[in-house]
């Protein structure tokens, strides 16, 4: 009674099929574009998508196994980025077959790269409060507005754009989800520098940007429902490390990878595996935060300090529990169940881990924790004194630690979701769900 039945023996069959297909198709001398064409049209780029959307309808965990197996085989993996993660699943779920054939095909074959144009300076936690405005113009729309926190904005061919199409409707009822061509005048992408000194994200200014009539995914003014589908795919990705095994090679026309030789970008081949292996490839383990700081503590001669030991074990404990929580979700999903709220729990726990890691890491660094290189020259100057390659990782993570409690729904929003959706606690009064958006208070 203690062993769960394996779900329909499919993983092994699937991986056998994949390996046979790779034996047949993988050729390092193909261009990246040629290889992704083969991979995507065979259903191996986004196998979790339905079969009418270039997928194979497999479970999320099987999809992870597939991408890991491609990497283990030594072949170039599926095109990465937000197309495969968010746009593809959204269009597969909410788009017409024509839209799927136009857009998902280009996603799974890596022809187009995508970015996300959701958040605005005035609409962060309250995404539905967005004010970017799309006005009908002939058989299309003219869009004006400003977006923010757009990653890869300058490498994207297309954007997932949320714009307000009816300001007189209540705020959730006047939004449309558009496919927006990023390669047109009126789009300006500006890097947004973070407190770490890096610019992982962009601001995107939209000035009289044109969007075609058939670019709306789902119905006009029903974009909030579509956006929620996108956000659900995003949360699933954030919580479960769903990108593991996916190649970092950027797809699309701008990054310039399509004409490179596929073999040059493929990972070095793992140890050959017995072809009869009945076990799926084990995920490669990144060194945990706790492991990194344990080594750091030893190096700084602090690992015998009882205060340090307690906090290292707290960090280790949270890491272990994160892993175990994920395992429990996996076991539940394997039998078609779920553990509600576990995604939000994972996100809140990540915030806690990052804070603990930040405070402990810099305390272990001691005086050296005051040092940080914001550019290569500075980094070299720090290393010249400290000669410890772990220190920049510690200081960088400590600065970055402020981001996870904010992005993808702040800690406060996660707690609202758990409270209201999982525990069934009542919402706050004064809902604006019936008020025309144009009459609501907004940021200046």
């Amino acid at each position, binding site marked *: 009674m203690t062993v769960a039945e394996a779900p329909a023996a499919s993983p092994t069959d699937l991986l056998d099929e994949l390996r046979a297909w790779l034996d047949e198709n993988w050729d390092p001398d193909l261009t990246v574009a040629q290889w992704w064409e083969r991979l995507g049209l065979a259903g191996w780029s986004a196998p979790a998508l339905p079969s009418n959307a270039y997928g194979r309808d497999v479970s999320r965990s099987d999809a992870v196994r597939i991408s890991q197996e491609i990497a283990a085989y030594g072949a170039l993996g599926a095109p990465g980025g937000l197309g495969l993660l968010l746009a593809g699943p959204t269009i597969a779920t909410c788009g017409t077959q024509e839209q799927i054939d136009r857009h998902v095909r280009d996603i799974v074959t890596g022809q187009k790269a995508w970015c996300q144009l959701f958040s605005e300076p005035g609409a962060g936690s309250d995404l539905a409060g967005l004010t970017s405005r799309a006005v009908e113009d002939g058989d299309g729309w003219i869009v004006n507005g400003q977006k923010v926190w757009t990653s890869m904005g300058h490498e994207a061919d297309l954007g997932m754009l949320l714009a307000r199409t009816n300001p007189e409707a209540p705020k959730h009822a006047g939004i449309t989800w558009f496919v927006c061509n990023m390669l047109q005048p009126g789009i300006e992408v500006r890097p947004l520098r973070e407190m770490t000194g890096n610019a992982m994200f962009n601001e995107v200014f939209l000035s009289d940007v044109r969007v075609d009539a058939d670019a709306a995914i789902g119905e006009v003014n029903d974009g909030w429902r579509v956006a929620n589908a996108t956000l659900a795919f995003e949360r699933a990705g954030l919580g479960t490390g769903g990108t593991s095994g996916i190649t970092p090679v950027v797809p699309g026309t701008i990054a310039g990878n399509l004409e490179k030789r596929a073999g040059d970008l493929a990972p070095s081949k793992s140890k050959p595996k017995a072809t009869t292996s009945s076990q799926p490839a084990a995920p490669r383990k990144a060194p945990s935060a706790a492991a990194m700081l344990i080594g750091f503590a030893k190096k700084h001669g602090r*690992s015998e300090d*009882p205060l340090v030991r*307690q906090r290292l074990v707290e960090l280790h404990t949270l890491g272990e*529990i994160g892993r175990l929580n994920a395992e429990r979700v996996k*076991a539940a999903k394997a039998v078609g169940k779920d553990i509600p709220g576990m995604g939000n729990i994972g996100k809140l726990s990540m915030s806690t881990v990052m804070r603990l890691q930040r405070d402990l890491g810099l305390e272990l660094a001691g005086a050296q924790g005051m040092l940080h290189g914001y550019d290569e020259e500075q980094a070299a100057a720090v290393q010249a004194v400290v000669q410890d390659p772990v220190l920049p990782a510690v200081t960088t993570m400590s600065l970055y630690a402020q981001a996870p409690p904010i992005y993808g729904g702040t800690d406060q929003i996660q*707690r609202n979701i758990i409270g209201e959706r*999982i525990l*069934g*606690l*009542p919402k706050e009064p004064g809902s604006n769900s019936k008020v025309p958006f144009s009459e609501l208070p907004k940021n200046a």
Partner: protein
Amino acid sequence: MVDFAVSDEQEELRRSVRRFLADKSPSSEVRRLMATDEGYDPAVWTQMAEQLGLPGLAIPEELGGSGYTYVELAVVFEEAGAALLCSPLFATVGLAANALLSSDDDAAMKEYLPQIAAGELTATLAFTEDSGDWSAADTSTTATPAGDGWTLDGHKSFVVDGATAGLILVIANAPDGLSLFAVDRDAAGVERAALPTMDQTRKQARLTFAGTPARLIGTAGAGAGILARTSSLGCAALAAEATGGAQRCMDMAVDYAKARIQFGRPIGSFQAIKHKCSDMLVEVESARSAAYFAASEAADNSPDLATAASLAKAYCTDAFFHTAAENIQVHGGIGFTWEHDAHLYFKRAKSSQLMLGDPASHREFIAQQIGI
């Protein structure tokens, strides 16, 4: 690799136990029993054995049990913790039966475990002394060979259900080192004094032995090893119990937050309260993962059991305590009253933190195990 798959049989076990406890261990019974000296209802103990087979659930079939694993036992402890069951279950099954099973003493197992499985015998493990050292490293109780057997002299303290247990397993210093001994309920020279506990739902006693006849369990000198494994299994049981307790505290808080009106709104609509409840869910589900993992390691006889059990014990009892304290705060004044059940969970939680070693000591143990 850990497998968290939940079988239909486990779910059915959980439903049965929950139904049984809803019937036999409502708040009124908890309050009645916590005010008695014995602290439990022998009739209910018999029913737990006869109707549900709980004491023998993880005892091998050939020793009168059902042969299930610690994973199933964890389900039982979780439900018992949720109901604050007043019962010798933890002492008998979580400690004593585990000590016997860890002893490799076939004769002793054959004699005692069938009685335990049948609900005919309650038992406990007496190992800590007045110092409160849970490792028993400072054991002063001595065991002296006497004819075929042994005699014990000394004392034990903080003995769970020590005043009522039919069988007392005692850690004592024999010439070969720490060893495990069995002492009968009515053995000569035993005195049992109740120790009034903050958590009145689980009784403790101080026992003294003066030339008390005892039977060696396992081999002489094997006591430290038996105790280490038993402590881990006891910690895994406490962790599961704490998870159930934490879940119940959260349920109480959420229910109250939905019903209680202040300022014209249910208090659960205020973020201050809503977010407290949300944080409870984070802890409850995380505790459950930790507790199930420890149970799974126990079921697998994993060499990592000790680490997993310490991790679960530290995390789950902390989570239980935090949840229990926050439950009082969510309830406000009524949660501070004796008549409300919130304090019973609070006290059980605090006692669970301190029993078998406090969270900091378990974290230090983990540090040693993972090479810090």
